[in-house]
């Protein structure tokens, strides 16, 4: 138990100490809120979609969590390059425990990052229908964070250095984000896009956050929670397996 706690704490300390990372990672969400929120707002309203910013805000929160979570998982590659991974791998602690502690820490960091962006969305005029469901929204944020930290860890376990990093961002993280329901409603889409959005786990996470904050679920609360839990469990399983095979 104290091992899990220490591994979790390590991720948090590293996060709190890297101010550049905290501030730097807020740039993108702000840009999206400004450019899309203000840029597309009028068109969206005319088309009968309602307040675009309130629609977009949960998507941007999800984006911040997605990036931060994948990044936390990928940090294993840094640990490998700077050598600290060796120290963890020779310790008499099961690899699953190490993977778990790290993932919980990374997910906590990503959730905090999501909450900071959540705070920022108010500056842009985000309307939450009721704060009663805030705990539910935070739960969804944490599930998104957990799922993608586990995915990042799984991927990082297969990579030796940072060279594959751009590839992952461009061919995995970006599509996961753009083809989820983060930026546009999932109703009345062309079949292909609809299918992709349906298999993109981020769609369910963002739908959950959006539902909890604005009251409009697309898939439904139960479906969102169920899908996220199952996919997270699968990724943690795969991540643990791949991590247990890591050699130096």
């Amino acid at each position, binding site marked *: 138990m*104290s*091992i899990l706690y*220490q591994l979790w704490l*390590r991720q948090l*300390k*590293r996060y709190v*100490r*890297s101010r550049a990372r905290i501030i730097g990672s807020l740039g993108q969400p702000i840009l999206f809120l400004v450019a899309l929120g203000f840029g597309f707002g009028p068109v969206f309203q005319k088309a009968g979609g309602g307040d675009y910013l309130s629609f977009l805000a949960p998507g941007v929160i999800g984006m911040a969590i997605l990036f931060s979570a994948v990044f936390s998982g990928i940090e294993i590659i840094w*640990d490998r*390059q*700077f*050598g*600290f991974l*060796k*120290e*963890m*791998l*020779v*310790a*008499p*602690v*099961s690899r699953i425990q190490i993977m778990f502690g790290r993932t919980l820490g990374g997910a906590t960091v990503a959730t905090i990052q999501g909450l900071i962006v959540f705070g920022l969305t108010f500056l842009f005029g985000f309307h939450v229908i009721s704060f009663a469901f805030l705990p539910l929204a935070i739960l969804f944020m944490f599930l998104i964070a957990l799922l993608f930290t586990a995915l990042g860890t799984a991927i990082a376990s297969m990579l030796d250095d940072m060279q594959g990093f751009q590839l992952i961002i461009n061919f995995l993280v970006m599509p996961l984000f753009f083809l989820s329901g983060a930026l546009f409603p999932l109703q009345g889409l062309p079949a292909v896009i609809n299918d992709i959005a349906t298999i993109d786990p981020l769609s369910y996470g963002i739908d959950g956050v959006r539902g909890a904050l604005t009251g409009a679920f697309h898939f439904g609360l139960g479906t969102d929670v169920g899908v996220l839990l199952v996919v997270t469990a699968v990724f943690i399983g795969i991540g643990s397996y791949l991590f247990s095979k890591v*050699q*130096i």
Partner: protein
Amino acid sequence: MNSIDVRHLTKTFGSFSAVKDLSFLVPQGEIFAFLGPNGAGKSTTIKILTTLLSPTSGEVFIEGKSSVTQQNEVRKSFGIVFQDPSLDDELTAYENMELHGVLYRVPPVIRMGRIEEMLRFVELWDRRDELVKHFSGGMKRRLEIARGLLHHPKILFLDEPTLGLDPQTRSHMWQYIVALNKQEGMTIFFTTHYMEEASKIAHTIAIVDHGTIIAQGSAHDLQVKTGTASLEEAFLALTGDAIRDEDATSTDQMRMNMRIRGRK
């Protein structure tokens, strides 16, 4: 019982064999030195003994447990100081020690006392709350040694532990390790390129070259065998004086890169 029992160990990377049909025993409580030119396969052997790499073929037993099928038991029995950096630069010296103590399940009361003892020993107690990334190379090395000794393992692996340390620190550190060996019967397995260290401290020395042991015995045995007056001369007589520049430069290059990246 033997602390370390290696039988016909082979490790290949692609078509290159870094370790070839290596066999040796290290009895409990012995100080065993593993000497060899750059690229001889010393670090690769240590990585296999410490479960970081799996062997291509052959068997390895640490305190009677297989380092392939009983990794968790094996990991409980040793401590290690790696050749390459292995600290978390974003944590303080104290935090690095504490995390290690927790990972090795050293009970809190003992842990706190021992962290202080070890940090005082390597003269880093006053700087315990500084981030490791601000430490000099020698300070990092001292911290790594302090960390490796924190949990008093049955076997201690030291891969060029004294690399980059001044003579005072080196002799200070070896004194402590020899005392641990005497008091707790800790088995010590180390590599070094400082021949006088090996000659003074090791009970048994194995000379490795190209992945195999080419001679083994006490420093005296090796000198008698080669008809030389010092371990250094015996080493050169056994391994020849060709420089292993290709390996040396590539590893050195890698270390340089790590340093540069680490500094940013």
